[in-house]
């Protein structure tokens, strides 16, 4: 057992993590999750935002156990391997903002980088525009890193700080299981504070236990292997290091094979699940997500797992994503299968400008 666990920090770690995600994500779709959405950090965080009443788009409200499990799995791994180190202080407000814009970009595309790769592995060729945008955004982020961009150093924090996010996840799990309905609508029917979809993608989910276990397993493996869907491309370009990229290749190949076996591979540009066909804004949305994730130091999954390790700055990034999950619907930013929303393209342009300003102005703590 210990040799297997050591294996996870070797060069095989990201590959093993990618293979496990590549199998389990399509299985979750088979068990009930929306198409090509076995795991999506952006869509699922948006669903949680809706379930908490931060937006009222009734088809995308659900407390996704994969997110809860992911953070708690990483938390457990960090505790077991003595890597639970509460820390904060590296420009938390800027990270909150980057989390917001990463989320807006991802929801214009309709998927985080994890789902971009899973969509590709399911035959959704529009994912290619998203992935190209992602690479462009990461490339732009790298330009700023090379120019000396830095959000500064974090500092050790009291242990209690690191327990906030795990406690929040447990609270979300309680909300999901109890589904409290304290409020009353105009007709006197019970409503809120927890809202769960009765139709649409929010009502499509695998059994809660299965989703939670997948989240725990993926969170555990990813914490050990440092799996990162942004770092994969960033390190290849910036450091000529394919350590993390091998994990992404493993994920795509395994998910492709698993989809074939499960009869879920459906190649084409049109009629793909929870996706639209606007190539320009599939590219643009993910370009914004790519630069925001790169400036913040990692993909949404990595931010979630770092938050599980006690990283308060990564937790602020997640908080930004959660709040943006609400705004993305109340401000008509998130796309739908019928196409981009009224303010999606404008938000992408504003987000790119904000990220460029952040990239040019944040340059503290270089030694």
């Amino acid at each position, binding site marked *: 057992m210990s040799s297997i666990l050591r294996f996870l920090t070797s060069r095989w770690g990201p590959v093993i993590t990618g293979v496990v995600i590549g199998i389990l994500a399509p299985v979750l779709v088979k068990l009930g999750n929306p198409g090509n959405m076995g795991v999506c950090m952006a869509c699922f965080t948006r669903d949680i935002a809706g379930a908490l009443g931060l937006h009222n788009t009734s088809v995308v409200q659900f407390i996704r156990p994969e997110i809860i499990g992911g953070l708690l799995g990483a938390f457990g791994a960090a505790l077991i391997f003595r*890597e639970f180190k509460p820390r904060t202080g590296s420009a938390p407000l800027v990270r909150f903002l980057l989390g917001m814009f990463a989320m807006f970009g991802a929801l214009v595309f309709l998927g985080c980088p994890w789902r971009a790769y899973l969509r590709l592995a399911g035959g959704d060729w529009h994912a290619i525009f998203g992935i190209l945008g992602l690479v462009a955004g990461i490339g732009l982020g790298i330009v700023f*890193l090379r120019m000396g961009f830095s959000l500064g*150093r*974090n500092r050790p924090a009291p242990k209690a700080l690191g327990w906030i996010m795990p406690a929040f996840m447990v609270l979300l799990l309680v909300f999901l299981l109890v589904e409290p309905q304290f409020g009353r609508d105009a007709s006197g029917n019970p409503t809120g504070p927890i809202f769960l979809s009765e139709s649409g993608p929010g009502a499509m989910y695998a059994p809660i236990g299965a989703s939670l276990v997948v989240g725990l397993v993926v969170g555990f493996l990813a914490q050990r292997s440092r799996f990162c869907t942004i770092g994969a491309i960033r390190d290849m370009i910036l*450091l000529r290091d394919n350590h993390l990229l091998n994990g992404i290749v493993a994920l795509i190949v395994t998910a492709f094979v698993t989809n074939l076996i499960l009869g879920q591979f459906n190649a084409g540009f049109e009629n793909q699940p929870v996706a639209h066909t606007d190539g320009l804004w599939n590219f643009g949305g993910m370009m914004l997500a790519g630069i925001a994730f790169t400036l913040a*130091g*990692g993909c949404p999954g990595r931010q979630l797992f770092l938050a599980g390790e006690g990283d308060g700055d990564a937790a602020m990034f997640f908080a930004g994503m959660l709040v943006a999950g609400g705004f993305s619907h109340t401000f008509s930013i998130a796309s739908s299968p019928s196409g981009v929303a009224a303010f999606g393209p404008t938000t992408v342009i504003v987000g790119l400008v904000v990220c460029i300003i952040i990239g040019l102005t944040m340059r503290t703590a270089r*030694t």
Partner: protein
Amino acid sequence: MSESDVIDARGLSCPQPAMMARQALQKLSKGTLEVIVDNSTARENVSRIATNLGWEINIDERAEDDVHLTMRK
């Protein structure tokens, strides 16, 4: 070892520790470089970059959050 051959990468996000180490190693081409990190991820990343570039590496873990990586070529 001169002051400039020590990099304090403690508390910095990915990819900065590995990027700073790589830039310094390429600039030095041979000699000694010390990089100080405070977490396992940065330690693994800097070690891998140094090894890939053909540098010998010695790890001195003075405390969990005070790890000195000395690279020689």
